[in-house]
């Protein structure tokens, strides 16, 4: 590992840092809106990483003008990719936000844990089963087969 702190190195660290911040935010937050924002930050980090991949120190924009040779330009491919990635990210965020709006209406909460609990209860009720983790009805019973009546099966 080289200890040269050149620009490239710092940029990569920054991009990965953004990803890390975003991912930690997704985990740490319980508030839905913060989670979605953290997702946006993480996506920004990933996009940054992509665009750095094509960057050259002192490079020129990849546009043909007089006096700039292709050898001096930066890589155009990551730029095209990052354009795509950004648009995809926007789409997903818009989707998440519109879902969040409706979920808030359905469960009157933006706390992801409360939403999850309410959702599980909904699913269980719809399937007509009692809570999956009920302590009153241990699931171990009758899983192998019948429990044999005391006098007939003992050996």
């Amino acid at each position: 590992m080289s200890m040269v702190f050149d620009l490239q190195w710092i940029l990569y660290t920054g991009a990965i840092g953004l990803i890390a911040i975003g991912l930690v935010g997704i985990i740490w937050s319980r508030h839905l809106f913060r989670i979605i924002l953290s997702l946006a930050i993480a996506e920004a980090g990933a996009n940054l990483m992509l665009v750095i991949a094509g960057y050259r120190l002192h490079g020129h924009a990849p546009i043909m003008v007089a006096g700039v040779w292709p050898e001096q330009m930066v890589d155009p491919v990551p730029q095209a990719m990052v354009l795509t990635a950004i648009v995809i990210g926007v789409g997903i965020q818009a989707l998440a936000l519109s879902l969040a709006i409706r979920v808030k209406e359905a469960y009157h909460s933006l706390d992801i844990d409360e939403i999850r609990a309410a959702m599980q209860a909904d699913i269980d009720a719809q399937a007509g089963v009692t809570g999956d983790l009920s302590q009153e009805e241990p699931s171990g019973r009758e899983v192998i087969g019948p429990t044999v009546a005391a006098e007939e099966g003992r050996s």
Partner: protein
Amino acid sequence: MSLLDALLLTALGTLIATLATVRTRWVGYVASLGLGLQLLVLFLLAPLGYGAPAVTSGLAWDLFGQPLVLRYDAMSWYFALITLGAGLVSSVYATGAWSDHYRAAGRSPGWLQFALALNVFTMLLLLASGDFLSLFIAWELVSWASFLLMALAAGPALKWSLRYITYATAGAMSMLAALGIVFHLTGSLNYADFMAAVDQWSVGLITLLTVLFGAGFAVKMGILPFHLWQAGAYAETPGPGMAFLGAISSRMGLYGMMLVWVQLIGLIRLIEVHIPLTFLSLRDVLMWIAAFTIILPTYTALKQNDARRLLAWHGIGQGGYMLMGILSASALGSAGGILHIFNYATNQAVLLLAVFAVVYRTGTADLNKLGGLFTRMPLTFVAMLVGIIGLAGIPPMNGFVSKWMVYRSLLSEGMPLLFVASVIGTLGTILSVYKLIHNTFLGQLRLEHEPVQEAPWSMVIPMMVLALIIFLTGFMPGIVLDWVAAVQAAVGLPVLPHTLGGVADAHGGLDMIMLVLVLFAGFGVSALLFYATGRSEPVHQLDNYAGGHFLSADVRYHYSDHFYAGLMHRIGHWYRGSFLWFESVVASLASFLAQWSATFYRLMQPALPMLAMAVIVLWMVS
């Protein structure tokens, strides 16, 4: 096309014909006819039973470079004979009056016949398997075919068959593991390659393969500790189906053991394997397992109050005798074990058919609700009497021969403790079969059974045929011993010298013809004395008194509840249900893990995937 092809194709044809007629009334005749045809073809193959070289099927084909071989040798023929015999008898029994009864109860006799034919077909296929792959395929087919037969009755049978299939799948997976290991080691699944390689393998490997294959077969046999499914699952199977399953289905496990342990690995290798820290060899351990399989289920049978369950539990114990005999590796003992397969099948079949004849007439198999039927169903009584004499191992029936051979070999091979264990088992057998016949046929007839009549002919004839076979093969065991000797030769066991009357041995053989003649001479003398003195006088069973009171028909004096109360007072507290406890421990543990997994999916945040990723990457980088 060889005769073996003809046999398998006939079986397949029977299956298809049964399926085609499954909703009609003559499905039973179709099935019986088909099974009869199969038996006929098997008789054409009879030279196999006397040691002719193995017959290979032309149906073999390649799957992914692995040839599937089908072939019959003496052992296959012997087992196939019992299978087809039991199948035919059950099918005939299920055809006549019984099927009307069954249909009236809202069930479909057609599906029962189909399930029977399917069982027979898959078993014939299993017996034909000539390599590990076809062995496993046929094994699974047999398992699921008997599952179908068990589940047919619906109701409580569903739960028991679920239990069975869980055990059976566990066993099959164990076999599959062994299969994979064999393939890894030899690069093929042929028996020949296996036998060529087995000599170089280490003791640990031999033990592993013995146990993995054995566990699969042991589940089917109901060998301890895999026996818990069997009694209930069999008892809930519809009548003739249970007779078939009880007579032969479990023995497919024994076939597998003989094939893998005896023929392929060789008992010598098992004897060479010493279990560390003990003075036992692997073979000894297996024999002790067999001994406990004799004792525990037999004494469990003693406590049953349902005739079907009593016989089913009992059947588990009898498997132990066969296994013990075969594992003794001597000519006499192994012949006894192999012979007992035949004898037991006939005994168990006739007993179950008799029990279901009683059920047919009275509607119950509860031993506390029967009694005194001797006067109403004398032929059924005779059939059952023959069966229990055979099962208990008393001359002149065939059960005596095989048990005598096993005992004698245990003694002569120097295994007195095992001998004691099996004698204890036999004691339990005698006690429990006595309970069966006493509570059913002897004693006082219940009022509601006054109008009961003898079972219909369609049911009596199969019983009588079986009873005759039991007596004949007891009188002249040499008939069967010929086949047994061929089996011994086929699997590489020492061959027993035998005569038509029994065992030829310089140090005291067995001549059943002589013995039976002497016995009957004794009977004749006693009868002569009995009738000549003229001291007896027949009386009505209510022309009697007890405790100073005259009896009337509405007073119950038939002693059946708490049978063997005195004995139970002594040994009752030894019944601990340890295996049930063990099973429930395993189930609870699995349940705990399952709950944990479900919770994982229910409660987990997206955090965990991230954490997992970080951990995985760290692990890989470092």
